């Protein structure tokens, strides 16, 4: 119901055992996990300056949070507009543990996120008891209302939430963990990476358990699940509290990493961001949110350095994803699996290059136009000089406008010209399949 590209939904002939759908398989491929673990170990040696590690920490926290969110959205079909609350409350709980010095001195820091998880879970148990009664719009509305309520409370109940300035702590007061006091970013990185692996694995295993499978069934057809004797409400409730637990862990890691938690961690804007991240990555696959979190964090950190308009671009990207690629980035990648399996993927390479390069140039031209318009409208009166793509020019001059418009128009025209070739190549690469996918670059 929710999206057309469900996990492993590749139409095959079930009569041939070799091609049987693997969706129901309970086997777990170890290889991707080993590769991911090794990558996490090696990353700080490749990107070893402090800012890169900061970005990676942020990324890992977002990945855990997005995976937890996708337990609801992708696997359970529940759209939440207030999920940041559980992460935020987890963060606040961890911060209070950090602040209670006597207790914290007996506690090694790596254990701390569990408290966040338990608090997130506890809150999810309370809220879920009435919000998971139905999925869809009603659930979305309750999540929004509760989210707003708790975010508003955070300014009033100062004892727990610390009011507007939030609460801060010091992670180094904890019991040293094998002599490590977590003074350096790199130590925190490994702590977060450890929790990333553990929680991602647990969440993956959850999706393979009977309850995780039932969550999918309830998402697709609650009525039928009820007829089979499962209470769709309880199935949703379990997904919800586990999601709350992992969101709380993400919040706890946030508290450890930044040593400050504020109202911003649980307001609606953060909830919106996590929805954006998850959907961008693709809700139909387990690894979708991971891609989404990596892409979004990069976009956020890199693009926001370059332009004031990065939120605008993110919004456009999000809307385009919803409209044209509801499977997200993961869905886009997985569309190519049949072609690769048939060994025909190489046929796509040249058409992709000839179509995507003009498209990219066109998009860059368009964004240059957007930047120039913004500059003309909002820069101070005498300031007519601006820099776009390492070129400095006068934004009130006709020439740069003509160049930008020309490049954009020509690039998009070339792309349009190339589209039929790509479509033909796509159809060719997927030829033996009866199902016609609707084109790689629709």
């Amino acid at each position, binding site marked *: 119901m929710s999206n057309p590209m469900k996990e492993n939904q590749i139409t095959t002939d079930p009569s041939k055992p070799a091609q049987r759908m693997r969706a129901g398989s309970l086997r777990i491929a170890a290889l991707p996990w080993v590769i991911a673990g090794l990558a996490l170990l090696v990353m700080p040696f490749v990107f070893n300056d402090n800012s890169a590690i900061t970005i990676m920490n942020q990324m890992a926290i977002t990945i855990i949070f997005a995976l937890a969110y996708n337990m609801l959205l992708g696997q359970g079909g529940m759209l939440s507009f207030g999920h940041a609350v559980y992460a935020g409350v987890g963060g606040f709980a961890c911060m209070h543990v950090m602040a209670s010095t006597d207790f914290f001195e007996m506690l090694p820091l790596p254990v701390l996120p569990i408290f966040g998880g338990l608090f997130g879970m506890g809150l999810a148990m309370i809220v879920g008891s009435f919000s998971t009664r139905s999925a869809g719009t009603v659930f979305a509305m309750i999540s929004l209302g509760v989210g707003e309520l708790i975010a508003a409370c955070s300014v009033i109940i100062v004892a727990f939430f610390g009011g507007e300035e939030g609460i801060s702590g010091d992670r180094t007061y904890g019991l040293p963990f094998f002599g490590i006091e977590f003074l350096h970013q790199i130590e925190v990185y490994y702590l977060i990476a450890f929790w990333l692996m553990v929680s991602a694995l647990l969440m993956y295993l959850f999706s393979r358990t009977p309850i995780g499978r039932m969550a999918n069934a309830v998402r697709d057809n609650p009525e039928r699940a009820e007829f089979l004797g499962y209470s769709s409400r309880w199935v949703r409730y379990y997904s919800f509290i586990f999601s709350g637990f992992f969101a709380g862990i993400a919040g706890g890691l946030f508290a450890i990493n930044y040593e400050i938690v504020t109202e911003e961690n649980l307001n609606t804007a953060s909830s919106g961001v996590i*929805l954006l991240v998850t959907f961008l990555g693709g809700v139909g696959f387990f690894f979708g949110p991971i891609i989404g979190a990596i892409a979004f964090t990069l976009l956020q950190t890199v693009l926001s350095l370059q332009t004031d308009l990065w939120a605008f671009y993110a919004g456009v990207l999000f809307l385009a994803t*919803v409209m044209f690629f509801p499977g997200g980035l993961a869905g886009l990648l997985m569309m190519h699996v049949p072609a690769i399996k048939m060994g025909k993927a190489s046929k796509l390479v040249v058409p992709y290059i000839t179509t995507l390069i003009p498209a990219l140039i066109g998009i860059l031209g368009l964004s240059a136009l957007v930047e120039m318009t913004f500059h003309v*409208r909002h820069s101070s009166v005498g300031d007519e000089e601006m820099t776009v793509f390492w070129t400095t020019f006068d934004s009130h001059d006709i020439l740069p406008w003509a160049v930008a418009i020309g490049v954009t128009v020509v690039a998009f025209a070339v792309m349009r010209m190339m589209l039929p070739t790509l479509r033909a190549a796509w159809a060719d690469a997927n030829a033996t399949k009866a199902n016609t996918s609707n084109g790689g670059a629709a």
Partner: protein
Amino acid sequence: MDLVLVNLIDGLVTGLLLFMLSAGLTLIFSMMGVLNFAHASFYMLGAYFAYQISIALGFWMGLLIAPLIVGVIGAGVERYGLRRVHQYGHVPELIFTFGLALLIEELVQFIWGRNQMPYQIPDALNFTAFAISGNSIPAYKVFMIFISVAIFIGLLYVLTKTRVGMIIQAALSYPRTVEALGHNVPLIFMGVFGVGTALAGVAGVIAGPVLGTFPGMAFVLGSIVFVTIVIGGLGSLWGALVASLLIGWITTFAKSYNIRMEDILNGIGISTPENLSDSMFRDIWAVTSPQIADILPYILMVLILIFRPYGLFGNRDA
């Protein structure tokens, strides 16, 4: 007593303003089964367009033209955006409108910047209409009440007494049958979406000068509007009216009377703890009603959802 009257009028203004938004939203919901997250963004667009038009042509032309533009944009969004996403199901539709709300906010900041616009009450309405024992009621508030009531009556008339209204009502409940009778149902849906967003635009035009025209205005009102239609019952026009007025009055009264939590708790027999400043619950004891006025609607919503999940006037099956 006089203060009660003043508050009643203030609450009525807030409530009717909310109703103009929630009426369109609830109509769109009963039509497509999808909450339009971007509804309040159309309200914001209405205010900004009206401001831009009022610079050139004056307030009254703004009141006339801005809602039309907003309605056309709304219809375009339905035709080219929502209808496309509709095939993927309800959740992507909801996500689409959510993304649209984000994008419109960014777009408004892109065009008009982050600051509040100097959108003013027109001179013709900038006087005191009457006074209740020293509390003056501005003419603009009276004007707002008149506009909203007129729109409500007009909407009710069109929906229940005209042929178009009959077809719309039929299309809401039995789209396939209506289509089989030869009516263009997608066109009706587009029209309803356009009118709903235009109503939000009207609300924006008349609220802009009072509540301020700034990029956050959609966000401020947006979630309250959802709360309103959830309390009233999704899809119920009367529910939307009752809930809007209820929320309008509750928040207004909570703001103007300083009721302290301590007094309430003492009133029901719980005595104030000796060492309040050390207590875990000191913030709860110190809470006053103006402080929580803005979150009262959310509390009300959660209570409604627990005890009457289909809302005050909602359909149990919905």
